[in-house]
């Protein structure tokens, strides 16, 4: 086994102003780094199991490796991958941020490792953190009450929709429709449909914002909710938000804020002040926690007073004066019930709390300023056209005559992760870019050089990319037609 030396000729001149990238290629014959079980195995035999015979095996093959071999195996796999620790990852709307390491220290503190069934008196410190986080988030969003229970942003959306549904039902409304702008995050449509609503798709205006006439037409006595993200997916602020809120409320509906883009507003504008009634927070985008999709996440939901009694069970509240405790749990009067076991993903929430507490007011203000400044600086350095503006924390460039997917593949050859492509569809061959507040000027310049190098390349070069990555271009069509969702399928 050896690391194949990349052939300098086969990647074209994939360097931009001195930056050069080659991804590691560890292989053995025609296979990449073999599974550890393929290297050396040993057979273990067990013949005295108390379990029924049909549930047990007599023999089991286990990898038998020296510790350094195992460490190297996983290190090689990470070398053949690309992540936020490798370089910039400017996926618009997905907001891939580096999370400061101190938040990991906080989550690893042994004092945080409490069993959720411990008596309330024994977890007052934990409840204090949860209570404070509810309070922080409520103040940041301009909301009156917050639940920390939903385990991811999309779960937060679903919870918010259920809360809005419970509110309407309690108030005698039989409202069956949720209005979602065409350019909204796909989760909005999915959450509305999953909660049993009919989705009314709202066409965008020519300026990329909500078209008030189209909204007027879409609103009716069936409208339960309008779901908006602000700034929207083009990075544009909905300037008519107060009028939009009035129109929705006059129709008897509620206004939902998709918190995916809250990092553009932190400390500068609050959804509650704009007239939103219910919102979710993507703590991995706005603060610093892992993305929910690949493991435990968190998607807290904030609501105005009128909706607080419908929040999931339980809420952390201050105990009455007569109580010897400071905090306790409470079931909201008309709660929709539980949306997650226990109280949410506590250690993820602890990271969000640590980030907010460490940054404070000034730090959070600074984060949104840098998120917007970085996006605007990067856009100013990129040669691709950016048709809509002024934008905030993200921008959507157009690859013009080039295929945005090919542009993305080619950008990999320059050692950066490409932006989100071909969405939102309002921009042709969209390159949706969000550098986030974490990057410095040097990295933004590296990204701009990658964009501009690819912009000047011909279609043939783009269609052959990527050439300097561990894995070459995959056959997307075949991968979709012949789904293999487990390593077990490799033998088929």
């Amino acid at each position, binding site marked *: 086994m050896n690391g194949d030396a990349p052939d300098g000729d086969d990647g074209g001149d994939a360097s931009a102003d001195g930056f050069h990238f080659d991804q590691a290629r560890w292989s053995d014959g025609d296979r990449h780094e073999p599974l550890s079980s393929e290297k050396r195995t040993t057979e273990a035999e067990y013949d005295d199991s108390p379990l029924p015979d049909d549930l047990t095996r007599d023999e089991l093959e286990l990898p038998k490796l020296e510790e350094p071999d195992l460490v190297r195996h996983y290190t090689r796999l990470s070398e053949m991958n690309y992540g936020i620790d490798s370089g910039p990852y400017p996926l618009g709307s997905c907001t891939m941020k580096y999370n400061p390491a101190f938040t990991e220290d906080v989550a690893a503190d042994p004092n945080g490792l409490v069993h959720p069934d411990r008596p309330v008196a024994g977890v007052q410190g934990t409840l204090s953190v949860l209570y404070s986080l509810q309070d922080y988030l409520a103040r940041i969003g301009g909301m009156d009450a917050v639940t920390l229970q939903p385990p991811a942003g999309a779960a937060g959306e679903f919870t918010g929709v259920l809360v809005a549904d419970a509110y309407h039902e309690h108030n005698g409304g039989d409202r069956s429709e949720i209005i979602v702008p065409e350019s909204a995050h796909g989760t909005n449509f999915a959450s509305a449909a999953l909660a049993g609503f009919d989705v009314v798709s709202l066409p965008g205006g020519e300026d990329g914002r909500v078209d008030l006439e189209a909204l007027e037409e879409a609103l009716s006595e069936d409208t339960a909710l309008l779901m908006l993200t602000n700034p929207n997916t083009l990075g544009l602020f909905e300037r008519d938000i107060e009028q939009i809120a009035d129109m929705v409320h006059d129709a008897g509906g509620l206004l939902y804020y998709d918190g995916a883009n809250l990092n553009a507003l932190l400390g500068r504008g609050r959804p509650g002040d704009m007239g939103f009634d219910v919102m979710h927070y993507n703590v991995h985008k706005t603060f610093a926690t892992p993305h929910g999709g690949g493991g435990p996440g968190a998607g807290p939901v904030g609501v105005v007073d009128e909706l607080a009694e419908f929040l999931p069970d339980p809420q952390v509240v201050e105990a009455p004066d007569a109580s010897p405790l400071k905090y306790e749990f409470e079931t909201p009067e008309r709660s929709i019930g539980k949306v997650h076991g226990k109280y949410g993903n506590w250690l993820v929430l602890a990271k969000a709390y640590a980030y907010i507490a460490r940054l404070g007011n000034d730090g959070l203000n600074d984060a949104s300023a840098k998120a917007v400044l970085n996006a605007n600086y990067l856009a100013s350095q990129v040669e691709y056209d950016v048709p809509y503006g002024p934008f905030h924390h993200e921008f959507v460039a157009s690859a013009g005559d080039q295929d945005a997917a090919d542009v993305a593949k080619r950008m990999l050859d320059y050692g950066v992760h490409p932006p989100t492509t*071909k969405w939102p569809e309002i921009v042709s061959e969209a390159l949706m870019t969000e550098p986030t507040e974490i990057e410095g000027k040097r990295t933004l310049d590296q990204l701009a050089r990658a964009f501009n190098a690819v912009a000047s390349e011909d279609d043939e070069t783009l269609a052959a990319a990527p050439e300097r990555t561990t894995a070459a271009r995959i056959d*997307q*069509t075949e991968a*979709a*037609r012949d789904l293999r969702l487990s390593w077990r399928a490799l033998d088929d």
Partner: protein
Amino acid sequence: MSFNIPDDRQYMESHEYAARDGDTVRVGISDFAQDELGDVVFVELPDVGDEVTHDEAFGVVESIKAVSDLYAPVSGEVTAVNENLFDAPELVNDDPYGDGWMLEISLSDESELDELLSADEYDAQVA
């Protein structure tokens, strides 16, 4: 680019075709539609015996670029489904009017055919 729009059948604005043979209408998507979608990777169809309704969704076609609903040109009972598409969705790209057909529906209301586009009218729409 010009597309194959045979005049032996009718079309919907949403790009499905309806080819009548006696009391049966065979349904698929047009050459233009398959080209717009790109490589088709999955087709979801109703079962034989199901009822479909004129202008309402009966299934889904998924390509590497998009997922689109399929609309029924006429109402009636599904009498046949092209099961080959489940293992070979590429037939929709390779031969949309032939081996890439999707459904056969037993015609229940002849007047629904009057609402469909002729080949010329559809050609004008996609031109």
